[in-house]
């Protein structure tokens, strides 16, 4: 394996931070988040996973789509596309899997989402293998692994004296140019794995659409949006025009899209007031069906990477692995 010392890695990251936006896990007032860092010293290396996934870096909570300038009957539109290259360091394999799942929707399924695609093309992912799985992690049950290098450009794994470095893609290769690596015999240590959770077959879902189970589980659901917003693959959004300060005496607006979640009460409510998913049981069911049935049917990739964030942050213990266990059991 190729190995870089801690100091060597830090120096390389510091030089990267001079050229591009460097995003990495950082302690923000006691909350671990992927955030831009000015130097490698700000990076936290020992963690299970940040509270939010890296989807923010591609699909930000608020994104401007257009700027609209209106002067009486005259309208001008400006397309606002994201610029600038970013390198994200310390990406967990489950998060990288999440980006892959978003790629299948935003890029691989026509039409391409211009904004997402632009950010994706301008980003290099440097992964960091997990030494062990967190308490709520189940990536191995949904086709991933704590040291899975498939979805990153460069993979790091902690070894004695530094990090083992693996260039996975050409983009990763290019990024590594100039980093002094040492050939060391051996392999990074294998991560410690959790007991797997049974993954129900895709076909197991539709027959259980009408089960009482959903309503029972949703009874304690608060219809907040934590699960969707911490999720590496949830990508529902809302679009609206909002006012900007006037410009040259003309009204100015921006068309924005913002995160939204199918668990929210008004998610499907239409202007006339009709809400086909007024019950929280219907909404929670939709979320789980989307993860394991709808999304795979629609774009061909599963929408759960086993990161366990929704389990960790749900205030009322709605546990996706409990759903998987249940489905596996009733469909056996």
């Amino acid at each position, binding site marked *: 394996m190729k190995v870089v010392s801690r100091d060597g890695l830090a120096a390389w990251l510091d030089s990267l931070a001079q050229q591009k936006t460097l995003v990495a896990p950082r302690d923000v007032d006691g909350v671990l988040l992927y955030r831009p860092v000015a130097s490698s010293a700000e990076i936290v290396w020992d963690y299970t996973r940040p509270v939010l996934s890296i989807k923010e870096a591609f699909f930000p909570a608020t994104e401007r*789509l*257009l700027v609209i300038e209106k002067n009486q009957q005259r309208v001008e*539109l400006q*397309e606002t596309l994201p610029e600038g290259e970013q390198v994200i360091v310390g990406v967990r394999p489950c998060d990288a899997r999440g980006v892959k799942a978003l790629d299948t929707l935003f890029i691989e399924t026509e039409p391409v989402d211009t904004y997402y695609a632009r950010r994706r093309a301008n980003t290099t992912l440097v992964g960091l293998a997990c030494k062990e799985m967190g308490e709520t992690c189940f990536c191995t049950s949904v086709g991933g692994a704590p040291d899975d290098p498939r979805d990153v450009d460069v993979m790091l794994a902690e070894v004695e004296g530094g990090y083992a470095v693996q260039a996975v893609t050409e983009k990763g290769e290019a990024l590594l140019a100039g980093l002094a690596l040492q050939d060391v015999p051996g392999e990074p240590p294998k991560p410690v794995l959790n007991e797997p959770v049974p993954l129900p077959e895709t076909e197991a879902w539709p027959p259980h659409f009408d089960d009482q189970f959903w309503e029972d589980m949703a009874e304690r659901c608060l219809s907040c949006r934590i699960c969707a917003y911490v999720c590496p693959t949830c990508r529902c959004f809302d*679009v609206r*025009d909002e006012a900007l300060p006037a410009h040259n005496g003309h009204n100015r607006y921006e*068309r924005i899209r913002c995160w939204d979640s199918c668990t929210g009460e008004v998610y*499907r409510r239409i202007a006339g007031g009709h809400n*086909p998913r007024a019950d929280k049981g219907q909404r929670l069911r939709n979320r789980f069906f989307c993860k394991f049935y709808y999304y795979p049917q629609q774009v061909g990739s599963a929408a759960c990477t086993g990161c366990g964030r929704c389990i960790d942050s749900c205030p009322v213990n709605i546990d996706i692995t409990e759903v998987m266990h249940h489905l596996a059991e009733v469909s056996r």
Partner: protein
Amino acid sequence: MTSLNGSNGMAPYLGKLVVVKDMAPEIKLFGVELLNGGNARFADYKPGQFAFVSAFGAGEAPFGIASSPQRGEVLEFAVQRLGSVTTELHEMGEGDTVGVRGPLGNHFPMDAFKGKDLVVLGGGIGGAPLRPVLQTVLDNRADYGHLTILWAARHPSLLIFRDEYESWRSAPDTELHLTVDEPDAGWEHDVGLSTTLLEKVAPSPKDAIAITCGPPVMIYYADKTFQALGFTPEQSYVTLEARMHCGIGKCGRCNLGDKLICMDGPVFSMAEVGNLMESFL
């Protein structure tokens, strides 16, 4: 599909309102002339497709296209004032600029309908996306069999496209039935639910196609009535609507089971969505 660089699915074309006409209380018909190359994109849209119309500053909302390209380049939309976008549109007049993004979604398989009798059932503003179906049939009258139009609304004043009823009635092999929930003094047609009218007219399912659009509850019960009349799910088509924000399969909102109304629809046969209708209500 954009006025900007041609690839951004979220960027609209600009268009000028050339027609703004009151059709009913709170319902207006808007005619849009596209600018900046939008015409090419809309040269060959099909009955059943929809588009997002922007009232810049308020936002955009999806509407079934109520016109047919064979009748000219002006795109028409029937808009009921309900939310912020439609309220803003209702404030606008001829000459004002709107945005149009589309055409989106699938369409009625008009070719497959050729030679068949058609029963078209429209409820309220839901009649709007069915107008291009009627126009296509009337403009190519010999290609289709008997045409039965069932048009329903809550009140006579809420019936849409009233000034076209004469031309529908006078077309060969075509009948028009009207019904309202609450008649007014001069009302000479049926009174009651569209399903009651449907039972009374009782069209034969033989070599026939049923096409429905209206409020979810109406679609649900109309389907049951069509089934009772002997129409199979494969013979029964609907066009559905849902809250949506992109129209291109990204925003996730308009799913009906694993179907996305914006991409897999809005036109469905009941064979595709019949078992999902309960969750549409």
